[in-house]
């Protein structure tokens, strides 16, 4: 019995919380955001993902009110927010540096925004205590920011930005200052807190793993434009461009020439090799294409497989043992290197293949994606 | 991101006008033909000529130069030693007293420093003159040098010295070959500071100078008391000019060094 899936972006009746309408932002001659439109819905955990300089931080700063768009409008709850200064917006931000006020205690940092709203003292106190409890730092209320650890500071920053119960919380690289282990634990806590408070989160990150873990939808950005906006699994399994395929996870990209053959296409890609058979996600014209396939979808075997259309023979060039996985770099006679990944599901002393072994790589017709290039 | 707001532009303009207008007026009036210091009588450089013929000023300038030269060198050596002791000296008996004596002269009113040194020279029967001024200036300048050099010593990575020792240097060689080149900019700015303080000092010098040695500030002070004079304007202009040239040259040198380093780093990056 399936639960109702949280997917307001598929429901035409749902009204978006945030709407970017043809927003452009220029700094001098540099275009940070280029005619960008997007809808973000209430209770979403939305990730803006991209390399540094792609415009993701500018988008966030426009939402917070520290930058105004050069053209276009940004609506929050159906209202144009460009004339509203940052201190009057019901949007709060968690800064990458955390920006905790060093001269105030943890308690006063969290109470800072509430005091600006001139709330009665007991109400502020109750809210601060609630926040301290939410992020599990009740014990550190009276300490100064320099007297707590990096992970605790991150929690204070989160609590401070959540204290005013904003309609929208912006998180700028929220976990980048934490070490890997702590980062993974905190990702889940962040999701938990987002669900508990029901706040819409927009997170900016350059860490694709983080975006994939926490977000309900991910927007991949490059040079001020949106490359793809979709759920994490769609982004991974059905990237719409080589840029997205390459940016998210590991991928083999093979350039070739496609010829449609009914449901499938046949891609000629190297002299002396049989064509690759792929299934395009949408009908496409014949011509130049890229074939993208994830390493884990490429099977590696010593014997020639019999049940597959796509297979090539090559030599093992390199082996990366990652513990749970092993990645084989296999060089084909034409010189192209294809990566194949296998799970090390059994505990074994020796690897099944070693350097210079002749191996077969194979994949099914639907394992890869055919992208226009 | 930073832009000059109306408020900031105003405060900067007014602030720098306040700092510079008096000096600019002095410079302008040094070229005044008239002896009257408030009436413009046409352009002239005659006061510079008169200044250069004034034996008393020239003698005083020579004394000041000698005092500055010797006292700043002594102060630089002692001050660098003092900084080294403060930062790297470890524990020794009377360390607190030592650091107290380094920092106290910085905040000691000049009249007290001058008075106490004068009383010392009298009680040990030392004749006042050039030598006593050098001693006095070296003493308070060394503390400034110590502070400047020790701030550099604190910030530099000690493992560099340890590497030198590890590679076979004696402690003295390590200091000469590694530490000194690294702290050299601080030592030089300490020396410049000591020199300026010595050339500039009036109060302490007027306590410890005898009749045989009059420094330029003492001479200037006694003639200022009689009122504004075009010769002093000319002298001020020369001094302001020297300081301006020196400061700008120093800042350009540092700027160029920084630029060169940045360019080299870029090239290295590209090459790599």
């Amino acid at each position, binding site marked *: 019995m399936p639960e109702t899936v949280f997917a307001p972006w598929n429901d035409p009746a749902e009204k978006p919380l945030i709407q970017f309408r043809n927003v452009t932002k220029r700094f001098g001659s540099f275009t940070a955001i280029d005619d960008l439109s997007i809808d973000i819905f209430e209770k979403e955990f939305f990730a803006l993902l991209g390399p540094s300089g792609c415009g993701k931080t500018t988008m966030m700063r426009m939402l917070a009110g520290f930058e105004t768009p050069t053209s276009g409008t940004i609506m929050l709850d159906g209202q144009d927010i460009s004339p509203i200064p940052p201190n009057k917006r019901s949007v709060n931000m968690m800064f990458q540096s955390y920006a905790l006020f060093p001269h105030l205690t943890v308690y006063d940092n969290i109470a800072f925004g509430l005091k600006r709203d001139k709330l009665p003292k007991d109400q502020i106190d109750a809210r601060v205590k609630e926040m301290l409890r939410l992020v599990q730092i009740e014990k550190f209320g009276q300490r100064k920011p320099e007297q707590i650890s990096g992970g605790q500071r991150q929690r204070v920053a989160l609590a401070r930005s959540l204290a005013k119960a904003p309609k929208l919380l912006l998180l700028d690289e929220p976990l980048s200052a934490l070490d890997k282990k702590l980062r993974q634990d905190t990702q889940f806590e962040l999701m938990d807190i987002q669900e508990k408070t029901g706040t819409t989160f927009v997170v900016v990150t350059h860490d694709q793993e983080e975006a994939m873990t926490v977000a309900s939808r991910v927007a991949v950005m490059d040079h001020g434009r949106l490359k793809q906006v979709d759920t994490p699994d769609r982004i991974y399994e059905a990237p719409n461009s080589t840029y997205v395929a390459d940016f998210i996870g590991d991928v083999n990209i093979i350039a070739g020439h496609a010829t449609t053959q009914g449901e499938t296409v046949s891609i000629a890609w190297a002299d002396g090799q049989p064509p690759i058979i792929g299934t395009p996600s949408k009908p496409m014209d014949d011509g130049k294409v890229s074939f993208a396939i994830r390493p884990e979808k490429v099977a590696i075997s010593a014997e020639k497989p019999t049940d597959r259309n796509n297979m090539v023979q090559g030599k093992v060039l390199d082996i990366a043992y990652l513990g749970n996985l092993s990645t084989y770099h296999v060089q084909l006679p034409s010189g192209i290197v294809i990566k194949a990944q296998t799970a090390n599901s059994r505990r074994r002393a020796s690897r099944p293949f070693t350097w210079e072994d002749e191996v077969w790589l194979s994949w099914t017709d639907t394992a890869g994606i055919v992208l226009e290039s | 991101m930073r832009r*000059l707001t109306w408020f900031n532009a105003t405060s900067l303009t007014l602030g720098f006008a306040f700092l510079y207008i008096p000096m600019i007026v002095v410079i302008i009036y040094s070229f005044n033909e008239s002896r009257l210091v408030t009436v413009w009588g046409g352009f002239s450089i005659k006061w510079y000529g008169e200044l250069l013929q004034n034996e008393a000023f020239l003698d005083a300038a020579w004394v000041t130069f000698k005092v500055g030269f010797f006292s700043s060198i002594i102060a630089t050596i002692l001050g660098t030693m003092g900084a080294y002791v403060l930062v790297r000296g470890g524990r020794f008996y009377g360390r607190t007293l030592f650091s107290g004596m380094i920092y106290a002269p910085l905040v000691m009113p000049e009249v007290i420093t001058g008075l106490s040194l004068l009383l010392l020279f009298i*009680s040990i029967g030392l004749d006042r003159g050039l030598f006593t001024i050098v001693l006095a200036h070296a003493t308070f300048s060394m503390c400034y040098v110590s502070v400047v050099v020790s701030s550099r010593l604190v910030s530099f990575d000690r493992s560099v010295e340890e590497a030198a020792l590890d590679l076979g240097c004696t402690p003295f060689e390590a200091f000469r070959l590694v530490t000194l080149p690294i702290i050299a900019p601080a030592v030089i700015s300490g020396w410049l500071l000591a020199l300026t303080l010595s050339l500039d000092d009036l109060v302490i010098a007027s306590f410890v100078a005898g009749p045989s040695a009059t420094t330029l500030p003492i001479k*200037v002070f006694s003639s200022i008391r009689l009122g504004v004079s075009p010769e002093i304007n000319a002298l001020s202009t020369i001094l302001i000019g020297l300081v301006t040239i020196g400061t700008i040259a120093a800042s350009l040198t540092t700027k160029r060094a920084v630029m060169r380093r940045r360019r080299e780093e870029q090239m290295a990056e590209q090459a790599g």
Partner: protein
Amino acid sequence: MDRHRRHRVGKLMNLRRFSLIAVPYVWLLGLFLVPFLIVFKISLSDIALSIPPYTPTLELSEGWAGFRDFLSQLDFENFEFLATDDLYWKSYLSSVQIALISTLICLAIGFPIAYGMANAPREWQPTLMLLVILPFWTSFLIRVYSLIGILSQEGMLNQFLMWIGLINAPLTILNTNIAVYIGIVYTYVPFMILPIYATLTKLDGSLLEAAEDLGCSRTEAFWRITVPLSKAGIIAGCFLVFIPALGEFVIPSLLGGSETLMIGKVLYEEFFANRDWPVAGAVAVILLLILIIPIVLYQRNEQKMMDADT
């Protein structure tokens, strides 16, 4: 391993280290601490018409008895004299007052300049720094001198004020306390600007954005974040102005008038004009006692700033 040799090397190093410490140490003992003790001793002596002009003098040739005799003649008479003669305590009070008010004016003028510098475009900042440092390297005496021409009866300031119609007849500014205030502020304001500028440039801009994000207006963010976080620089600047201003001698004697009472000038005159060395010594001792409080506070502030940096 040659233990003997190692021992000798160790000894040599100790000797080197010893001389490294001893040279500056002895120098400062001899030329800073001892002179000050002499001042203290003389402040307990009496004025006399002799050379040197005070008694008692320590006669080491008379041995222990001479020393005891010497000690018994020292007293606090000069300090009692300072307390009873209102010239002195008025001078102290007026020095403190002048230094305090000048410090506050310096803060009022220096903070906006430092703030303007810190918020100026980054490529301007080295030049602005240079413009603040330049007067600092220029002769102090000449800067005070440059004010004399401006502040005199026929000076630029009076001419300017008459030209804009604010006054009809020239004001007497030179040789009054007003001139002393202007002089102190003019010469010491760079000391206020530099430490404040240093703390303001260290201020993380995202803190101000965070304050705005949490509901502060720009002005509110300035008072709640910028000012508290530049406190250390403000305090350092205030002490750097207050401490030297308190003992100032050149400015009151060149710009001040007969009404100007400042303790540095009194001390100088007591010593050179009245040749009363013991009283001059006592004046110096009291001045130092007054200064100890701000000096200790200043040191503590510096320590805090250093801790905050690391």
